[in-house]
């Protein structure tokens, strides 16, 4: 039994099936990476887990509790935190205020030290660079046990990427991470467990090695994803 069990999750928007009986399991302490093409349903999956969308059918069970119909802010308080693709932080609050708001259980100062934010603690959210925003967003999400991170690397310089990898490694020591990642090298580097989504369905799930060897995934999918 993993920390998060998703079973037969289904979600439609109008006539479009965004998720079609998606099942997956996340083991505590491991890092799970979701890969899949544009429109495969990755962000919808995150939205359903975190309560932004209610699934039409299926269950999301977190630490033994069914949260599939729990509103988002309660899910967050139970320990599932997320970041957004648009790299949301509070623009009109300082870095420190941002992080203090997000920290219920963790120590904001430690979070800021971990993510090298002490230097800029009094900068307003709106004046941050992308990499700084990403770190603040990460700190906002870091308070839970299960962190759902949506494309943490996109838009970063090649030089900033290793630093981000280190932050994720540090977080992964104490937390369970779930990532959406486009870059397949990075995905395989980080992952203990890979889930391949395609058109709302799970195409394959396993360790990076298993996924690389999976003929079906390889053939249908990995080729295009690699680039």
């Amino acid at each position, binding site marked *: 039994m993993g920390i998060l069990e998703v079973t037969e999750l289904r979600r439609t928007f109008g006539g479009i099936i965004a998720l079609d009986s998606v099942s997956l399991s996340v083991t505590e302490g491991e890092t799970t990476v979701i890969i899949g093409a544009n429109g495969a349903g990755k962000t919808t999956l995150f939205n359903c887990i*975190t309560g*932004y969308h209610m699934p039409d059918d299926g269950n999301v069970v977190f630490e033994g509790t069914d949260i599939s119909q729990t*509103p*988002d*802010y*309660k899910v*967050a*308080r139970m320990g599932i*935190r*997320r970041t*957004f693709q648009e790299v*949301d*932080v*509070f*623009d*009109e*609050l*300082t870095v*420190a*205020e941002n992080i*203090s*708001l*997000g*920290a*219920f*259980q963790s*120590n*904001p*100062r430690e979070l800021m030290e971990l993510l090298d934010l002490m230097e800029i*603690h*009094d900068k*307003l959210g709106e004046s941050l660079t992308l990499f700084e925003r990403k770190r603040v967003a990460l700190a*906002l*999400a870091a*308070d839970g046990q299960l962190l759902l991170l949506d494309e943490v690397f996109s838009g970063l310089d090649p030089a900033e990427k290793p630093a981000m990898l280190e932050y994720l490694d540090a977080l992964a020591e104490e937390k369970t991470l779930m990532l959406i990642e486009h870059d397949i090298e990075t995905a395989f580097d980080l992952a203990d467990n890979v889930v391949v989504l395609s058109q709302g369905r799970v195409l394959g799930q396993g360790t990076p090695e298993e996924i690389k060897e999976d003929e079906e995934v390889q053939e249908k999918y990995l080729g295009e994803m690699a680039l």
Partner: protein
Amino acid sequence: MSSSEATATHEEELDVDLRNLEWTEPIRAAAFVLVGGLVVVPFVISSNYVGYVALLVLMFGIMASGYNIMLGWPNLLVFCPAALAVIGGVVSSLLAIQMGLPFAVTLLIGGLTAAIVGSAVAASAIIIGSTFEIVIATLAFEQIVYYAFTNWDRVGPTGISGMPNPSLGPLVFTSQVEQYVFLLAVLVLVTFIVTAFDRSLLGTLAVATGEDEELLRSIGYNPSRYKLVSVVLGAFVLGIGGALYAHVNGLVTPGAFTLDQTVLLLVIAVLGGLRTIYGPIVGAVLMIGLPEIVRSLGFGDYQPYIIGLTLILVILFLPSGIVGGVKDYFGDFDNGGVSAWAFWK
């Protein structure tokens, strides 16, 4: 280091932070307003006309401060501050005239009634969600309040008159300068409340609500709550302001609290600067004082032109208002974005 208690629940967290609020800030702001207000006293005594304008400035300063709480912090474009104020005024007047209750009691009940109506407005605004629709719905609500009072035989188009002067126990404020000092005291109190709200976790969460509800939900807060608190608090201050207006003037009519007053309050708040402490006061001085100066120079009633032009110019060229603009240039004046509960203090 209040945030570090690993076991703190959400609710305790809030309380801890509110209790840890640095009271020096609100006290300093209140003292600042008090001193500024007292400096004007000699002018108030010197001329009846100046006194009259000063009373208006104070009352609109109070009401605009209340309105600013809902506009500035959670960014809710509620368009019925005049309705909330007139509710406070009517309730307080009726209680005083018909039941003979003391002013302090009627004032409070007036404010509370406005707050209760405000909670209904807030709930509707939360449900409706879209900014534009909130504007229209609250505009319509304000009209309904106007029709209801006009049509109600206790109030009617001619309104209520003959309510007692403001008083506090045995102290009755009859002369202009007495009323000025009393109103100033209320404004000082309101400034204190607004500053405390701004520096509290609650105020910060209200700002966060106005900025990004989705993000706020993702870190475990329910934005509806902070919208509600802001509107109710603002409505309470507006209701108090309306009650003061009624008793100081000795007359309250539904027609005196319509869209015109809402626009006036709006322009005061926007000109001064949304989400600033002193903005509404600066705005009131300018928007009440300036037209009166122009009028006293014999130019006739130019207030609508001044209001209209100010709205257009501020929106086009100075979106953060005067106090907000000063803040942008000089930093730490007013509430420079530093919260008392910030954890490294």
